[in-house]
């Protein structure tokens, strides 16, 4: 979404540090003074988990936090609902510092304002699918009928009609995770945290679940925070992409932007193997419109990816395109621009 600047910030992470060890507080100053993760471990025996994280998560957007294992992404998402307490920093939800909430307010916040989906599903094995889905409502003390109605509504929306009285172990992995998502949706929270929610599923199911999430998101417009180690998944889902490495943010921004202008070699490596034609959209590679639309140009939507654009003209390199947003021309594009965009920057430079 181009209009990111106009969106309201729903969750803001400010100057967040997490250091694991016996006496982490004094270590924050050392890290702020520039001590590296390896030095901190070697000299003081403390592990630097998160280093000065600043991320704004906008209302109604999917923010994807991507990184390899050990980059701190799962630690970061657990700070949002305080499953892990930070060493220093702030987590602001709707202008309120989550870290200053009292015990009761924290429980209320977890029940009503932030829900979570887990990599290993983490369903209650001794409860039926419907009972699992209604967890947040049950905890908040909503009447039994409400719980049932709400759970059944979301379960059938996620294609689990008829499985309400089954137990989680009777379902496949993909179905179990749909129960996990139904549990999160039932909470009616504005923020949904998904911790590698699809990583345990096989590729086809994973792709289906991603489509399902995008489809749901068009209806419900939640603030979604999604953790993944898979760049394809990140690029498919993200409105805002945050790349973590060794506990700090290497680069964040619109995924298209990161792909076209990687900030450092780590990200260049990351994006090298990506199918760029499928990820890049015409708006990211077009030239701004100056003057007249060239004669004979083919209109393409500004959100269309390059793969589809090339397919439209059967790879004919002589064609020109005009990029439109809401049927208004906003830019021009020719095959030459497309070809250049398909080559990663590093390879182009060498």
């Amino acid at each position, binding site marked *: 979404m181009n209009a990111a600047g106009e969106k309201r910030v729903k969750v803001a992470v400010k100057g967040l540090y997490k250091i694991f060890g016996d006496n982490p507080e004094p270590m924050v100053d050392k890290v702020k003074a520039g001590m590296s993760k390896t030095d901190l471990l070697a000299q003081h025996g403390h592990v630097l988990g998160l280093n000065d994280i600043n991320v704004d998560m906008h209302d109604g957007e999917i923010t994807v936090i991507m990184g390899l294992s050990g980059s701190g992404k799962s630690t970061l998402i657990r700070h949002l609902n305080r*499953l892990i307490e930070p060493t220093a920093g702030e987590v602001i939800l709707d202008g309120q510092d989550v870290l200053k909430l009292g015990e009761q307010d924290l429980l209320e916040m977890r029940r009503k304002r932030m829900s979570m989906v*887990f990599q290993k599903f983490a369903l209650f094995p001794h409860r039926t699918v419907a009972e699992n889905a209604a967890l947040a409502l049950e905890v908040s003390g909503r009447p039994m009928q409400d719980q049932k109605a709400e759970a059944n509504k979301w379960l059938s929306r996620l294609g689990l009609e008829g499985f309400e009285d089954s137990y989680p172990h009777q379902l496949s992995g993909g179905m179990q995770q749909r129960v996990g998502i139904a549990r999160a949706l039932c909470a009616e929270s504005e923020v949904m945290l998904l911790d590698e929610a699809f990583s345990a599923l096989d590729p086809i199911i994973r792709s289906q679940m991603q489509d399902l999430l995008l489809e749901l998101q068009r209806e419900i417009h939640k603030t979604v925070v999604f953790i993944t180690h898979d760049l394809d998944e990140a690029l498919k889902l993200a409105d805002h992409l945050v790349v973590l490495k060794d506990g700090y943010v290497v680069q964040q921004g619109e995924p298209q932007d990161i792909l076209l202008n990687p900030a450092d070699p780590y990200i260049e490596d990351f994006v090298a193997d990506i199918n760029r034609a499928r990820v890049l959209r015409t708006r990211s590679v077009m030239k701004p419109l100056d003057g007249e639309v060239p004669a004979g140009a083919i209109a393409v939507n500004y959100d269309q990816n390059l793969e589809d654009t090339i397919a439209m003209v059967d790879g004919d390199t002589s064609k020109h395109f005009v990029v439109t947003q809401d049927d208004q021309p906003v830019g021009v594009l020719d095959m030459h621009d497309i070809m250049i965009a398909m080559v990663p920057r590093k390879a182009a430079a060498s």
Partner: protein
Amino acid sequence: MSTYSGIFNAIGLRDWCDEDKKPSLMSLANLRGDEPNWYDVKFPSLDNLHEACSKIPQTRDMTAGLEDGFLAIRPALRFVLDPLTQPLSWALDGALTAFTETPWWFLVPLLVLGCFFISKSIRIAGLVAAFLAFFLFTDHYTYAMETLAIIFVCTFICVLLGVPIGIYMSKSDRAQRAITPVLDMLQTLPTFVYLIPLIFLFKITEPKLYGMAIILYAIVPVVRLTNLGIRLVDQSVIEAANAYGLTSRQKLIGVEIPLALPNIMAGVNQTIMMSLAMVVIASLVSAPGLGTLVLDGINNLRLGVGFVAGFAIVLLAILLDRVSKAALDRINAAQADNQ
């Protein structure tokens, strides 16, 4: 002269040692005036040091001192423990009366039905019926029912106390570190040894004397396995419970105890078996039941009596084990899921 006299002389403690020395009998060695011989040198134990210096207490003074100390705090201990444990006596008396006074033609079908209800297995109900018939036929029925009554009461109290202790241990590492050595001690202490302080504390005619002994011995597995069961609950499920704002109470009742139930029930099974083991030994301190027959067999060299009673105990053990295992299996089957 004893071996270590020289040392006390050398460090100038001789006067202190001999301060209130009574004229002692001369030992044979003293009479003979034997010189200490390096081959026979004795370890400086309390008794040997006492010989050299009468101020050093003998070992028997130490054990006597312990006894005196225990006797000194006995009134205070009794004052606290007596009313606290009185309900145990009432429960045991009540259960013994209920099991022995209820007519056999009512109690036996009731037990068989109860076992069927718990185990949901005709086979096990049949086994129970056959064993009870054996007890009736061989006139061991009343003894067996007394033993069973004691086991019922003691197991119930073990679960009542042991499960909360186990939960507390699972929630606090410090509690676990403090309680584990106590459990280890209760489990390794020879069973006769715990009877000794109890005999001092309570009158031998009181049922709570053997009740306490059985509970102390049999409570260990249910505590241990409750602790273990709750600690073994899948951490990702606990994390989900936290993420959805369950209070610790909701978490305990709604998630941890149900998921730990197979382990807790395994602990209850062990507790039942250990109660049975202890109730036999507790016949030494007037516990009624099959144990008294075994004791009679030992004391009066009646091989037949002891042997048949022993066999009856084995049958009772099989019966209790099968029924409680069947209950455990039902719980396991209901949860065979998560893994």
